[in-house]
């Protein structure tokens, strides 16, 4: 019997014949932690007592979630992490570098890699064909100490994508639609594997958006095969040598196959307080929005800012709607400046936040007031997520976010294009 992408990568990393359901110990190519799960991971690492990191050149600390720090205690957590990075020899991305998952995609992840991150959206790097999975701080600590981790090889759901997106519809709408169909636990413990004719026209940016939210369907990983899009992305990031072909076998066994025709997908909105509460934008139209938040590891890339700038150029945000924009990385910010997107967004009344997680998880830079509604391009709308349990969060694409910022209410982006 042939192998799925997950079985192939885990066979390679466990030096054996890994099949769905097996428990394996796999070599880890990259372990990373961020600033709000990292301090515990480092304390746990010290508790193990191994002294040094197994592969310091393959360990990274990111300061992105509370960046710059809004609290004395978080500033001290940053100090702790900086000191550890110096002592241990692992690399640290400073405040303002960007969101860990974007930086991993830009600079580190390669097809066939095994990546452990102490952040659930580590799955983002599945777009590059890496078995990238989020774990807690203790698992990350052990991966730092041993250079390996244990996993149950997941069963895979095959997502077959055909057709092309209509105008105003994008990767975010696709993944919200899919999660709406299978539910927030539709893929718990499993792998999502994407395939089909539409892959050839899905950019790396779009793939990263889709893979990013695999965990919001419960999945352990969301994997794309490697192809020309992968190769061109790696070349553009000056690491074309890291490309390797990676495909599932044609006779691989999947738990289920789901066909999606991109041409039939509409702009989608996830209503509060659940990601799988996804409806076509027409059903959410007219909801007044006090804040639009654009950015994050889901939708803070150059293509996302290009779409938003295209809609907002020469227009103003609604006077009662704040518009916050956090580019996903310094590279994204620099390119967006060069291309004029930042000027358009600022002139339309947008606030540019530093590259990082910004308002996504309720720590700083856009905490919502009681009774306020936010339309966010992030990946989670749980009650309390953006710092206030009395607020409402709607999830949508950059196009829907930009159109809604102008109207001051949830708006179909096709009407604004």
């Amino acid at each position, binding site marked *: 019997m042939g192998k799925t992408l997950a079985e192939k990568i885990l066979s390679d990393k466990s030096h054996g014949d890994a099949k769905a359901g097996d428990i394996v*110990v796999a070599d880890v190519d990259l372990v990373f932690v961020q600033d709000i799960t990292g301090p*515990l991971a480092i304390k746990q690492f010290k508790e193990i007592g191994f002294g040094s990191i197994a592969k310091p050149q393959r360990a990274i600390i990111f300061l992105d979630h509370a960046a710059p720090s809004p609290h004395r205690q978080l500033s001290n957590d940053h100090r702790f992490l900086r000191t550890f990075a110096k002592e241990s020899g692992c690399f640290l991305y400073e405040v303002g570098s960007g969101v860990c998952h974007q930086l991993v995609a830009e600079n580190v992840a390669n097809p066939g890699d095994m990546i452990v991150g102490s952040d659930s959206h580590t799955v983002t790097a599945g777009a590059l064909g890496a078995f990238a999975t989020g774990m807690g701080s203790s*698992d990350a600590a052990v991966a730092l100490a041993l250079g390996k981790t244990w996993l149950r090889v997941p069963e895979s759901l095959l997502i077959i994508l055909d057709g092309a997106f209509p105008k105003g519809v994008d990767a975010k709408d696709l993944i919200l639609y899919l999660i709406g169909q299978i539910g927030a636990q539709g893929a718990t413990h499993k792998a999502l594997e994407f395939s089909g004719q539409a892959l050839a026209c899905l950019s790396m940016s779009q793939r990263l958006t889709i893979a990013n939210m695999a965990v919001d369907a419960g999945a352990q990983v969301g994997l794309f095969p490697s192809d020309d899009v992968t190769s061109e992305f790696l070349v553009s990031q000056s690491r074309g040598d890291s490309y390797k072909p990676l495909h599932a076998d044609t006779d691989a066994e999947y738990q289920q196959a789901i066909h999606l025709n991109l041409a039939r997908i509409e702009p989608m909105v996830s209503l509060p307080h659940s990601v799988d509460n996804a409806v076509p934008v027409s059903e959410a139209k007219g909801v007044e929005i006090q804040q639009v938040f654009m950015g994050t590891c889901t939708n803070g890339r150059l293509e996302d800012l290009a779409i938003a700038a295209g809609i907002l150029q020469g227009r103003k945000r609604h006077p009662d709607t704040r518009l916050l924009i956090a580019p996903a990385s310094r590279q994204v910010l620099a390119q967006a400046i060069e291309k004029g997107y930042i000027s358009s967004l600022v002139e339309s009344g947008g606030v540019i936040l530093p590259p990082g997680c910004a308002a996504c998880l309720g720590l700083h830079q856009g905490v919502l007031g009681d009774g306020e509604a936010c339309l966010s391009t992030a990946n989670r709308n749980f009650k309390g997520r953006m710092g206030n349990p009395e607020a409402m969060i709607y999830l949508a694409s950059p196009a829907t976010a930009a159109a809604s910022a102008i109207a001051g209410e949830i708006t179909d982006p096709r009407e604004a294009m």
Partner: protein
Amino acid sequence: MANTVLRGRAIKVGDNISTDLIIPGRFAHLRSNLPELAKHVLEDTLPTFTSELSEGDFLVAGENFGLGSSREHAAIVIKMSGVGAILAKSVAHIFFRNAINHGLPVLLCDTDRISGGNELEIDLTDFSIINLTSGVRLSCNEISPLMSAILEEGGLIPYIRKHRDFEL
């Protein structure tokens, strides 16, 4: 493991209790001060939780408990509050590992057969549950031998300190 038979009362919560509900991001500045952080466990969904709970009680949930962020602090503050085990119809992937990694048992069973306040007895040697209030015996999913070994050592860090590696 010291105790293989646990007894306590059920405290019930609903479906889809996210890690944002268990311990919201707005308390991230307390993550290096766990006793202070633990005071806020579940406060946005069950404000009476910490006052209602007695040491050893069980947190009994519906579907997809612990979905969302990988923050291990969610499992830690539940354990610190005195919960003896989590019972749920289903549990999110990362949370499941995090709980076991801190020696907090997680049992998957039909929690519709347990009401808030019911007295439960759980035998961790065979993962069996008896609802002492109703007399109903519940079956639950077993965990893998590796997870079971981690749980027996009281968590992942003590397990690795002892074994120095994973033993399959």
